[in-house]
């Protein structure tokens, strides 16, 4: 649930409306309920769409969270490496 919360926290800082899609399902990127119900686990493919004045910045900030910081959590591979 923490990653969803981080995502929503960042998305909520922007004016732009943010839509996140996984396969056919699209949800409001500012709603933790909808984001967590998307059930995006590690390795899922997400499409982030923003509309509004600060749309570009919003997408960039969210991309950074997902792709660069990786939610500040170890990936499953890293976890198994730590354990062994």
């Amino acid at each position, binding site marked *: 649930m923490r990653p969803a919360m981080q995502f929503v*926290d960042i998305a909520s800082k922007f004016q732009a409306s943010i839509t996140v899609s996984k396969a056919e399902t699209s949800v409001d990127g500012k709603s933790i*309920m*909808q984001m967590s*119900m998307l*059930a995006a*686990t590690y390795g899922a493919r997400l499409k982030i769409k923003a509309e509004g004045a600060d749309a570009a910045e919003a997408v960039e900030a969210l991309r950074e969270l997902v792709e660069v910081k990786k939610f500040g959590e170890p990936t499953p591979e890293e976890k198994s490496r730590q354990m062994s």
Partner: protein
Amino acid sequence: MEIKKGIAVSPGISIGKCFVIDAEDYRIPRRLIEPSQRLTETQRVRNAFKDGIVELTRLQAEPKEIEGQKIKDIFAVHLSYLRDRTLRKKITDMVNTELVTAEFAVSSTLRDIASHFTKVKDVYISERAADIYDIEHRLLGHLVGGKRQDIAALKEEAIIVARELSPTQTASFNKEYVKGIATGAGGRTSHTAIVARSLGIPAVVALEDITESVNAGDTVIIDGNRGIVIVNPDDNTIQQYLEYAVEYTELEHRLDTIREKPAETRDGVRVMLMGNIEFPDEAQGVLQKGGEGIGLYRTEFLYLNRNTEPTEQEHYEAYSKTVAVFKSMPVVLRTVDLGADKYTQSRRYIREPNPFLGLRSIRFCLQNLTMFKTQLHAIMRASVLGDLKIMFPLITNLQELMQAKMILGDVMEDLDEEGVPYNRKIKVGIMVETPAAALTASMLARDADFFSIGTNDLTQYTLAVDRGNELVSTLYSSVDPAVLRLIRTVIQDAHKAQVETSVCGEMASEPESVMLLLGLGVRTLSIAAPMIPEIKQIIRSVTIEECNKVARKVLGMNSERQISSFLRDAARKILPEAF
């Protein structure tokens, strides 16, 4: 019209409109509202979210020794949900379109989300369902809590229908307007029953799914004599019950005339009849009904109806107010009996797997000395105002009693240093309410000035039956041979050691048990005020010789069923109107 049968726990008859309270930890039934209530219900949803946010923000800021960061993260997630407008809208939309109560909309929406999570294969996500249930629980807590304030602010007479009433809820009752109580859970000695009896409000418990059979505003009849609740009665039934109600009031008035007469058997044996109270404002009622003091003054209420723990001065004011009413009559004050089903402010969130076997009552006090000493300090200050006695609850061994007395000694030293006067010779006794205490009564008697047998917990612990669980309520009986043997042991051992013994459990206020208790040698009973006249009437109608015979017979019987039907027959001969 629907007739429901439960357990009659507080006598009397009342007819009125019902006020329903759902429980945050029990399935919320789908209950409908009128279109005109849409605005109020959606506002209740918004308020619950708002209150939840305030509460979580406060919890997050509190330094927590044990839980640490992990809990804070969980709180952050919950906060995030409560701030989610789309979630709130989903719930208010449901209220508006389906015309259901705020409670039902919250519960059903969040349960849908939770079940969505449990279906996901990924363990990390499916475990999140627990978070959703927590959020549901928190929101419902605020909705129900808001209802609680509504009971406090009732402007018209109502009959309360609930799954179960918590001590916090009953503590905030506006007694003037609560005319009857019906609960799904509970038994004769559950908290609701005790409170209803002491306030003289007709009540029926263990009605199972009663909350699903009523909607707010339905007309309900509570028959606290026969254990019957009738939902939406027809005109004939209402008429019939109005007549019953008149007859019953007449009986009560007849009994009130014996108020000035002593509680004395026909052969001249004097029995002392005292009252059990929880709130200082009940004290007057005990006197009015002819009580000769307080045999059990419960002090938990100071902790229940508020957000912060009471100060020493607040303890003192409550006690001195009560003592003032009784002047030189004895007032036995029981030190706080929190834990199990009643909680202190700071511990409300820590759950124990077996609360009735856990850190409750004297055990809790002995581990929270600051709180315990605060209460003892206030009691000792009030001890100069009248005949105040101290009673420690749930003692299971001599060490606990010694420890508690040692702490009382410390408090006396503090008072000496402060130059505050107190009664140095205050009597210190214990509740005998565990099998352990009953079996070792002869040892405890050396260090206790008096015993009070608490038959409610003694029965619960002896028979291993949860006294509030309606599923096993038929097994709960204070006249079970096992319980009676323990009571006899206590009375005999106390007699040998010349320690005064009274009975303060609900058993003492059951007309059918009175002869038995007298026959076992009990001479002091402490009961709910409204029961005093009826019990006195029984005492005045019997001889000790008859009582001894009843006790001898009963102790020779080997089944609870045989005993209770024998006792009922014996009592019916004496006071037929009451049965």
